[in-house]
């Protein structure tokens, strides 16, 4: 039978606050185990949580950027279960009154636009980390509570996706937005952006969803696709054999590309949520919402449209440049100093990106050639001081040394030769040395023109003004 896959995604984004959600411990990644803990996040008796205001602010940002309505009256709830990484025996989360609801994101897959609903976004605390530390003589599990009480936003989508590609497109979009908002560092490997996928199948044409499996432990975009594809195959096989899919949590194994059942966790799905009496309600005023709205950065979709309409970039260029907020900023800062968007776009997507990739995927924010320096270089090119070819050489030198383009051009004697007399001498020499080719050219083999240009450019070590070279060659060859 042919099946239609139905996918809903739950994303946990770790917020980039300085401190935890309910206490003043640092959230810095990679510190000595348990060094960033206090009575609140250790769950010691009598310790009282106090909400970090920044978390609410970030949640409102996320809600506004994903077209959600913001809940005015928020209550935190306790989600009760036992696990060694959860010292209190409950996780503080939100239940029936999440801070954001009824939003959506628009995605595009193979040219087709589609709207994916966002059911809810709620604030909660993270659990600690269970590790199997490599300590001699210790076969037990080890618990590090540095991460316990770190603020998370859980973003839950509607089951609106109908292919692994749609799921990836949604996730990438969401990832881009939280990065633009500056609320999450987006690091999938370190677990700052974690995804669980609810996957089910139904016969093509049906509108009744099948039983779903929840896939966990997926920490890259590539793995999400793999996990969903495997799950489609697995469930289709069960259904084809007349079996029933069991509703369960399954763990993705990146080594085998398969998912396996997490036994035993099922019975515990009785969380007995109730309002946490230790935390008073959070009332969000319209003023507060409007203030946050006013402080939102321009989001990628708007930016992309503006790059196309105001700066005349192609859709492809605009899409590449808005990929990250930093890249878009670099481009805009350069355009502000050298207002030829298309040229700047070519350089940013070309030389700049190539140099950064070759340099261990260095981030654009750390590019040694700043927008001001790049603009200086492009101005030299525009004035005709250097040729486009030389500009690339100068750029590489700028990247390596951090020097200004003027200085490099001066030091290396790279000023473009536009002096007709000097170029004419080189042209004459090239024509003389290649009498055979000249005869062929005059005999009708006009494709040789490029060869002559190349020879002259080489004779000038790349410094001859190509326009002048072309003009003189044409004149002399026809002459």
């Amino acid at each position, binding site marked *: 039978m042919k099946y239609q896959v139905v996918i809903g995604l739950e994303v946990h984004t770790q917020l980039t606050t*300085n401190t935890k959600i309910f206490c003043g411990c640092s959230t810095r990644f990679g510190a000595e185990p348990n060094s960033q803990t206090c009575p609140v996040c250790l769950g010691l008796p009598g310790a009282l949580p*106090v909400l970090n205001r920044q978390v609410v602010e970030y949640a409102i940002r996320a809600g506004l950027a994903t077209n959600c309505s913001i809940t005015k009256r928020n209550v935190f709830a306790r989600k009760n279960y036992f696990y060694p990484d959860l010292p209190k025996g409950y996780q503080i989360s939100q239940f029936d009154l999440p801070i954001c609801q009824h939003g959506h994101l628009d995605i595009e897959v193979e040219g087709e636009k589609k709207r994916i609903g966002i059911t809810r976004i709620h604030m909660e605390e993270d659990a600690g980390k269970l590790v199997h530390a490599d300590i001699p003589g210790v076969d037990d599990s*080890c618990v590090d509570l540095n991460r316990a009480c770190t603020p998370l936003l859980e973003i839950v989508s509607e089951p609106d996706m109908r292919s692994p590609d749609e799921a990836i497109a949604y996730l990438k979009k969401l990832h881009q937005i939280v990065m633009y908002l500056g609320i999450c560092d987006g690091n999938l490997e370190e677990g700052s952006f974690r995804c669980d996928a609810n996957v089910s199948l139904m016969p093509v044409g049906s509108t009744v969803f099948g039983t779903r499996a929840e896939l966990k432990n997926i920490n890259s975009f590539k793995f999400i696709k793999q996990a969903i594809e495997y799950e489609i195959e697995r469930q289709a096989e069960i259904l084809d054999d007349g079996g029933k899919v069991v509703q369960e949590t399954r763990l993705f194994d990146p080594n085998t590309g398969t998912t396996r059942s997490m036994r035993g966790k099922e019975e515990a799905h009785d969380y007995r949520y109730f*309002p946490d009496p230790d935390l008073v*309600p*959070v009332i969000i005023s319209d003023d507060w919402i409007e203030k946050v709205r006013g402080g939102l950065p321009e989001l990628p979709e708007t930016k992309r449209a503006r790059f196309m309409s105001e700066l005349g970039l192609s859709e492809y260029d605009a899409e590449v440049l808005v990929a990250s907020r930093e890249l878009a900023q670099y481009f805009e800062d350069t355009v502000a100093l050298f207002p030829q968007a298309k040229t700047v776009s070519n350089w940013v997507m070309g030389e700049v990106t190539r140099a950064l990739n070759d340099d261990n995927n260095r981030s654009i924010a750390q590019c040694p050639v700043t927008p001001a320096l790049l603009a200086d270089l492009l101005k030299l090119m525009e004035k005709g001081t250097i040729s486009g070819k030389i500009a690339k050489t100068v750029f590489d030198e700028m990247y390596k040394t951090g020097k200004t383009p003027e200085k490099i051009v001066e030091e290396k004697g790279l000023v473009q030769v536009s002096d007709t007399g000097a170029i004419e001498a080189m042209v004459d020499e090239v024509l003389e040395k290649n009498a055979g080719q000249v005869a062929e050219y005059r005999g009708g083999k006009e494709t040789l023109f490029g060869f002559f240009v190349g020879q002259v450019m080489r004779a000038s070590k790349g410094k001859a003004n190509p326009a002048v070279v072309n003009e003189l060659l044409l004149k002399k060859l026809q002459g």
Partner: protein
Amino acid sequence: MKITREQVEHVARLARLELSEAELDTFTGQMDSILSYVEKLNALDTEGIVPTSHAVPMENAFRADEATGSIGVEAALANAPLRAESFFRVPKVIE
């Protein structure tokens, strides 16, 4: 009866409590009488009244996003029954 023996067993399991048969009987009876007593509240008309989540009329108690320091690894682990280096040590968890 407001509560069954099975429900008491279930709640005990969720709380990781192991109860003897006799205890189960005792607690079922006690919980039943507690629930019957609380049930009297159902006689009140609560139409249109927002459920009370908190007893104190307070809202928006925040702290600024500023680090106030931690207590240090030694203090954090001081009450741990078992430790391994800077970790809490617990029975092996297999996922």
